[in-house]
Every structure is written in structure tokens, then in C-alpha cells.
């Protein structure tokens, strides 16, 4: 039923091919999971992709078309998505407008909201995991680090999310975090879309903490109760949070509502950070310009 025509990528645990679904001629991507690499049987990332993509059906989340075994390899048949947000941000030949940014943020938030309402954390949101379909729809992809929102007593690893998009509670070693970590990543992506360069590009995990707090201020127990109890807190450099004016200067194209949204998503204290519902209901999405029609975005 499926052909593998061209190899388009290779990761630690999978090789990605472009192909066609013979019965319909539909272009598809096939993620062939390498089985030999993982000494403990099937790779955890594959288990997670399969487990969560099977449950999610939303226009802004990548569709798992089919799954099959072949030559003892697990093959995930995914919808074909030719590009991603990282490509768009990096390619200076591509001009995009505030309305385009608004459209991308709206679609991304809808996709992530759908994961959260199904109690699934993505835990690796970044521009190159936000794929773009031929008709301009943003699709949240790569659920290799996803997991169900934990039961209260579960202990989670803080070593998740690609560094530049990692929430401060993760940088400080939190083990009982919530869906707020995904919202932080989206806030950083929003900033990156407006700046067209990575917003907080730390060189390493320690530098990432410093870069984050230098840009957004070092949290204190006053605004984030308990933060000083993290073991890594003591060695931190103290920086003042940026004033609204400084933020305006940094994000000159951003409207007041856009700055409110970004500040809500980048609230240090995860308990106070906006949820995806609050983000979707922000006035940024109802003020002019309206979000572009995805199919018209170049």
C-alpha cells in the first residue's frame, strides 16, 4: 500500500522517507523506527509517538495515517508536511507579516490546547517541530518526548524540551511540572517569530539559565514562592526583570496585546503562567490585523 521513494531525514531512532499511499495517490511520510538500536526492545520514543498520536485527531496536530510492521521494523505513516516553522524563520527571503505570525500562533495554540485537554504533555515544542502543510496549516509534530500529564505523585525528569525552549522550572530541576512547560516553549517561539532570531539561545544548560534570567529577570520567592529552594538557585546571578518599555524596544513590532500574551506565556512562576485557554482567549487574537488565512500565507 505504501512506497518509500526518497529518504529525507535520519534521527537517532528513526529514518524518514517520502512516499505515496498507492490506493489514493496521497503523499505521505514514513517514519521507519530502527529497532536494533535500542537494547531494551522497542524505543521509548516510538512507544510515545504511537501511544499519543493514536489518540489525537486535530487539524493542528500531525495525523498518524497508519502503522505497519515490515522486516521487523515499525513504520509510522504520517501525513506529508513539506516544511516547518524553523525553515520559515531562518529563510530571510521569506517575508511574513504580523498577521501571518498571529495565524501561526493561533493554530499552534489550538493544537497544543488539544493535547492538553487530552492530558498529554508534548515536552519538545520548538519551531522545527511545528510543521506546515501544503495548505498552510501548522501541525504539532514529534511526540517522541510526550507523556500523559502526570498523576500527582509521579516524579518526572526535568531533562526534557530542547534547551532554548526549556521553561525555568525545568532549568532549575523541577520534577512535578505541568503543562505550563509547553506554554513557555510557545512563548519563546512567539518571541522568535517576532525577532526572526532565537530569543534565548543558551550555549549550555548553565548558560541557558543565565541567558533566560538576564532577559526576563531572576525570579524571587516573592513572585515565585519556593523558587529559592531549588538546589541550583543559590549560584544564580540576580538580574532585574525588564521594564515594559524595554520589552517594547526589544519587540518593536509587537502590539500591547501581543506583549501581554508573550508576557503571560513567559511568566516565570509556572503556577501563574497562562494556560493555553487563557492564551487563546487573549485580545491579541481579536485585535487587528486578523490572523492571515493559512492558505494565503506565502
Amino acid at each position, binding site marked *: 500500500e505504501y512506497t518509500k521513494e526518497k529518504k529525507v531525514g535520519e534521527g537517532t531512532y528513526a529514518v524518514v522517507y517520502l512516499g505515496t499511499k498507492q490506493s489514493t495517490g496521497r503523499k505521505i511520510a514514513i517514519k521507519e523506527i530502527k529497532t536494533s538500536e535500542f537494547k*531494551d*526492545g522497542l524505543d521509548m520514543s516510538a*512507544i510515545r509517538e*504511537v501511544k*499519543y498520536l493514536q*489518540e489525537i485527531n486535530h487539524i493542528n496536530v500531525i495525523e498518524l495515517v497508519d502503522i505497519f510492521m515490515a522486516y521487523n521494523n*515499525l513504520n509510522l505513516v504520517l501525513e506529508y508536511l513539506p516544511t516547518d516553522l524553523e525553515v520559515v524563520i531562518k529563510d530571510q527571503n521569506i517575508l511574513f507579516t504580523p498577521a501571518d505570525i498571529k495565524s501561526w500562533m493561533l493554530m499552534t495554540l489550538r493544537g497544543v490546547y488539544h493535547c492538553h485537554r487530552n492530558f498529554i504533555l508534548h515536552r519538545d515544542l520548538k519551531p522545527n517541530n511545528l510543521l506546515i502543510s501544503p495548505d498552510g496549516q501548522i501541525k504539532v509534530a514529534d511526540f517522541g518526548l510526550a507523556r500523559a500529564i502526570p498523576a500527582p505523585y509521579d516524579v518526572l525528569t526535568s531533562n526534557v524540551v530542547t534547551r532554548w525552549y526549556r521553561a525555568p522550572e525545568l532549568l532549575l530541576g523541577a520534577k512535578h511540572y505541568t503543562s505550563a512547560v509547553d506554554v513557555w516553549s510557545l512563548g519563546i517561539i512567539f518571541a522568535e517569530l517576532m525577532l526572526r532570531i532565537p530569543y534565548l539561545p543558551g550555549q549550555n544548560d548553565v548558560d541557558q539559565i543565565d541567558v533566560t534570567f538576564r532577559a526576563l529577570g531572576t525570579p524571587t520567592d516573592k513572585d515565585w514562592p519556593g523558587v529559592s529552594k531549588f538546589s541550583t538557585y543559590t549560584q544564580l546571578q540576580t538580574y532585574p526583570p525588564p521594564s515594559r518599555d524595554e520589552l517594547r524596544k526589544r519587540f518593536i513590532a509587537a502590539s500591547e496585546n501581543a506583549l501581554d500574551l508573550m508576557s503571560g506565556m513567559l511568566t516565570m512562576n509556572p503556577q501563574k503562567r497562562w494556560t493555553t485557554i487563557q492564551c487563546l482567549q487573549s485580545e491579541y487574537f481579536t485585535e487587528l490585523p486578523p490572523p492571515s488565512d493559512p492558505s494565503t500565507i506565502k
Partner: protein
Amino acid sequence: FRSSSQYRLWSFTKEQLDTKRVDTNAHAVAAIEEKLTMFKKDYASDISEEDAKMINEKAIPLTAEEELKLVDFYAKKVQGIAQHLNLPTEVVSSALIFFKRFYLENSVMEIDPKTIVHTIIFLACKSENYFISVDSFSKKTKASRDTILKYEFRILESLKFSLLCHHPFKPLHGFFLDIQNVLHGKVDVKYMGEIYTKTKKRISDALLTDVAFLFTPPQITLAALSLEDEQLTEKYLETKFSNTDTIIEASKDTNEKDKDSEVIKEDRPDKINYILLLSLIDQCKEVMSNPSQVSMEEAKSSAAKLYFCNHPMNI
């Protein structure tokens, strides 16, 4: 829940479930009989009359009922081993559900349950983020690496790659909270805590039956709760669901004295059918209250048939 794989792929009526098991068994019986015929033909010269008679007596394919009993027998083992390994309730329950689903799609005559018990538990650990390396799992269970890994793909395929299980435990906690709200002041919270623990045990036992194929997690929870305390459960459901959902809205009249609330009988589009819910709960209680009892003798005799069907030469 309706968009979940559990509902889409693994929810059945009783009739569908029975048919599925009969079909799986028939498929395996045909394969076994063909294999035995071939065996007798291939070894015609070596098989004495006596041997042929013994083979016909011992190598008898299992009926669907015998299969189901053997599956239930081993399901208990899966639960026992997983609990013995001190795995969290969700992991134990997922292993159990995986095991029962696997033997809807496969016959014990194709894959001996003994050979997948550990793999099923190992896969449930991975799936529930309770990762144990295969080496430490092997040490704990005394099963070899290869035995543990051998059928992992086959199991995943038979599960139709649906790993997310909705168990009735979170709904139990949810109803524990909602009862406190709906019956506020009328229920003793300490007592609630006691029945919570007992109901949780009932749910674990119930997952050995077919309830997870026949009912939704909340229905199973309410059935277990009702078995634990029928009066409390009925009171709660009656208070919550029996009258149409009303939306109380202050009357439009600004006059203070008429400021009583005007009840708008707003039938929700998806209102719970209280009578239907009660009957579903009763049906679920019925299934839960009749778990399969399989004696060691029954299991042994089925296992012997199973063995000789697959190893006629040993007869």
C-alpha cells in the same frame, strides 16, 4: 472518550465479544487440525494404531470456552506478577488490559500465554512511563532477555498500536470529589475515604472480567462504587442526574422583590439519560459480580491439550 482508541477499537457489545472469541478460536482450530493431519500423514509409517488413538485423545484443540478460561487463568497471573513487582496500579491494569486484548486477536493455541506474560508487563511499564531496563526486568522476573523481547512487536501489532488505556481509577477520584460537592454536608468524608480504598480494590478485580470491553471507565467506577455502597451511589446519581439539567438564571426583572431565580428547564443537548445510566450500572455490576473461576485442574488439562496440539511428536 469516543475519540479514544479504547472506544474506537476495543469497545464491544457482549455479542460482538463472543463472536470475536469464537472466530479467533475457530481460526486456530482449523490451523491446528490441518497441522495434525499433516503430522499424521508425514509420520504415517512411524505412527502405530495405538499412537494414532492417543493423538486423537490427547491432541484436542481447545474450545472457545476452554480458551477463555485459560486466558482468564493467565490474566490473574499477569496481575499477580505485576503486583508482586510492586508496579503502580495503572501499570498493573494496563498490563492486564493488554493481555486480554491480545487474546481477542490471537488464540492461546497460536501463542502460549506463558510465553508473553513477562513481555506484556514489560511493555506496560514502558507505555506507562515506568521504564525498567530489560536487564533489570529480567533479573526481577527471572525471565531471559530474549523471552521478554521476543514478542514485543507481535503484541504491539495485535494491540493495533493502541497503548493509552483509560482505567476507572481516575474517575473514582473524580467522583470522590464530585460527591463531596453534590452531597455537600450529607456525607461523611472519613467514611468516603474508606469506601474509596475498597472500591479501588473492586475495580482492580473487575478488570479481570470483560467490563473494560463492555463499559466506559466511569460506568465501571460507578458500578464498583454501587457494589460498595448502593445507597450513597444512588443518592448521588439521583441528585445529580435525575432531574433535567437546569440552568438557574436570575430573572430579568430588576425589581428586588422579584429577584428570585427563574429556573429555565434547559435540557442539555447531551443530557445524561438517568434511567439508562442506572441500567448500565446494573449490567456492569452483574458482570463484575460473576468473575470467571478457573481451577488449577481445568487450567492444567487445557494446557496439556494445548501442549500436545503443538507437540504431537511427544505423544
